[in-house]
């Protein structure tokens, strides 16, 4: 267990060290060609993250706070592809007919598959990207370092494709500090093309 933890931490640090970081410019930003958000405060963007298909922004560094964009996931696609899916584990596949509760189940599995403990504090309908979306608020204890995190995510199925913006940060200080900024950004989200 210790060695797996150590390896994971090392991998995160290595990727963080190797990844190219760039500043996200103010104004309208296109994410993965299909999502547009309006940015009015500085963010750092990792060009490569653990999952290439999930662009990730941060204020304080990848291991502290992370704003993730799951963009235009099609029917049958994994929500967060990893280099090798563990055999026998539920593949986290989005289906176009999924309801909000099923999407929440998918993400709950994503956030706990490393052994982390997660409590859904609230799931409620909320307009997102101009559609009938939902918002998830949760608390999580990350297994790898036992840090208590809080998280929020907005999601919607738009034209049969899933869009989710997810932010998590340590409960103490960081989450509360950046939540208004993240909420403001999520309100600006709209589909492109």
């Amino acid at each position, binding site marked *: *267990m*210790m*060695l*797996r*933890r*150590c390896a994971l931490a090392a991998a995160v640090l290595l990727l963080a060290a190797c990844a190219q970081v760039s500043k996200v410019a103010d104004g309208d930003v296109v994410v993965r060609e299909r999502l547009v958000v309006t940015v009015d405060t500085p963010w750092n963007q990792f060009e490569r993250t653990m999952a290439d298909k999930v662009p990730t922004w941060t204020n304080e560094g990848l291991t502290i706070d992370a704003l993730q964009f799951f963009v235009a996931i099609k029917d049958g696609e994994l929500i967060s592809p990893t280099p090798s899916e*563990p*055999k*026998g*584990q*539920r593949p*986290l596949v989005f289906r176009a007919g999924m*309801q*909000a*509760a*099923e999407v*929440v*189940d998918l993400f*709950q*599995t994503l956030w*706990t*598959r490393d*052994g982390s*403990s*997660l409590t*859904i*504090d*609230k*799931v*409620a*309908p909320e307009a997102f990207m101009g559609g009938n979306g*939902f918002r998830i608020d949760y608390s999580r*204890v990350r*297994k790898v370092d*036992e840090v*208590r995190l809080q998280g929020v995510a907005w999601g919607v199925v738009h034209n049969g494709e899933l869009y989710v913006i997810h932010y998590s940060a340590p409960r103490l200080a960081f989450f509360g500090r950046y939540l208004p900024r993240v909420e403001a950004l999520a309100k600006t989200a709209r589909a492109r093309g």
Partner: protein
Amino acid sequence: MNRRRWLGWGCAHCACALAGAAWAEVGADWAPPPRFTRPDVGSDEGGLWAMMDREETRLRRSPFRMRDAGLEGYLQRIVCKLGGEHCPDMRVYAVRTPHFNASMAPNGMMQVWSGLLLRVENEAQLAAVLGHEIGHFMQRHTLARLRDIRSRTAFGTFISMFGLVGAVGQLATIAGAFGFSRDQEREADQIGLVLLERAGYDPREAARVWDNLIAELAANPGNDPARNSPMFATHPPSAERAQALAERAAGRSGALGEADYAARLAPLRFELLADELKRGRFDETLVLLDRMLQHQPGQAELLYYRGETRRQRNQVGDLGLALDDLQAAVHEGGEPPATHRAIGYLCRDLRQPEASRQAFERYLELAPQAPDAALIRHALDEGKPSS
């Protein structure tokens, strides 16, 4: 040598035998070693203990530690029954992690994971696993492993002077270090059995633990147990070991402690099953739940979880079976409120809108403050005919 690597060695408990070492067969007259004294801090063993002491300090404060009233005290009493005069040197921590695992560090820190608590069927099975770990502790297998790794690392460094061949050699060295010594495992198994029987438990239960695990793993042919379970990474389950344990325990008997264990687990079981479901390993979970329901047929909580597991897996034929289980849970009574939510979703998918509406309404009636209440209310509003 960095701290994390030491910790890994210290906790893993599997061991490569010291080269050429031969392990004596453990008989019924086996005598445990005298209590250990704290080793000199300047020695390799002293360093290992110091590392484990720091890890234990972290574990005491860990948010994953299960602080449920009396749980760790209950586990400690079992360990003391098994460990005899070593009792004051062993400290048990229950850790909420949904995998089958227990480990014991050389300083006496024992961790018992919640996935193990969920899977054993009685106190005797739990004692069998703890007795096995105590066997590693009493024989100081971790220290032997540390010394073995150290000698292998020195050898690996030597061969690394030869370029690629050296690199391959180092990999082989490291891989070997994490393999198992069959002799040490066998010895811990045998000591565990002796301790189990001396404490008055039925030693035949030891083999059943492994049989049950092997059945779970068989749900996913080709699955790599070592990759998916820390316990299996250090204690490979094998039919051969289960058979050896069964043969040694044949004809003996003892206490099962089934009622005591069930009473102790009851207040925790719902949450532990929720953690199990979140693992997303539905095939294994269904084997576990089938087994639990064989022992406790008609348990509404178990029926709910089996139904919910099938609903989430959603393979051919699953939804019908899931609905059967969920309705059976309601019929038995005392079902968790989430049973009605699951029926609501199922009936919606099966295009039974009225049954779905009734189930969602019942869910909200039983759990008006549920985290997803707003979402369910919204779904109900959407389903209403427009005026």
